[in-house]
């Protein structure tokens, strides 16, 4: 019973954080801020939901001798969450770097510097950059 409550708490918190990621993915103004919302919220919500479901697997655990396969399932779930913890920020960084190389325009408030023009001085698609 207490295991179900703790597990459900983790799952609900994960879903709430994914709700924030979805709202950010819709409402943010440019590509970079949308990637920021998607990358962070996606990673954290996935980790919380997977850890919650891993805790729920402990419900049938009755000693190490007879129910050791449950520990293997928990180890696999932790492995999936560690894999996502490593790979999701990596792919987010790679996509954002591709966007910067591709000169996707950021949305900037007036009178603030646009650092994209520092990297690519003539910002039209006719120049060649390699």
């Amino acid at each position, binding site marked *: 019973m207490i295991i179900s409550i703790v597990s459900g708490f983790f799952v609900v918190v994960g879903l709430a954080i994914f709700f924030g990621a*979805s709202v950010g993915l819709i409402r943010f103004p440019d590509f970079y801020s949308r990637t920021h919302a998607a990358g962070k919220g996606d990673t954290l919500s996935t980790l919380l939901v997977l850890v919650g479901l891993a805790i729920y697997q402990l419900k049938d655990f009755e000693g190490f001798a007879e129910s050791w396969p449950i520990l293997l399932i928990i180890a*696999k779930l932790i492995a999936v969450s560690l894999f*996502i913890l490593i790979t999701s920020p990596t792919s987010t960084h790679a996509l954002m*770097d*591709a966007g910067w190389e591709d000169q996707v*325009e950021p949305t900037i408030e007036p009178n603030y510097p646009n650092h994209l023009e520092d990297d690519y001085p003539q910002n039209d698609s006719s120049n060649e950059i390699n």
Partner: protein
Amino acid sequence: MTFELFSILAGVVLLLLMLPAMWRIVRGPTALDRIVAVNVIGTKTAVLLIFIGVIYDRVEMFVDFALAYALLNFTGSIAAARFLHKTEPGRGQIPKNEPVPEPTPTPDEL
């Protein structure tokens, strides 16, 4: 409320929260926005597979599917990012409405 019913509800909520990402895929405006949204949906599908495993009480089988799905999703995202790195600049931009050039008349039409 059993945990299976809770898992069904949580899976439905997860599916409904994927719809904004689907809207971002349809709407764009750049190709990279679409790839980011596809990445989000792929990660959440791995989580949804484990929810299905909890509902059917076969987590030991579905966790392997989830691991394979997360691996393929990561590979696809990295491949798409590298591809847009190597093409000419401007491929990920919002497409401008450029006038279509007039087709040159063939010798038969002259």
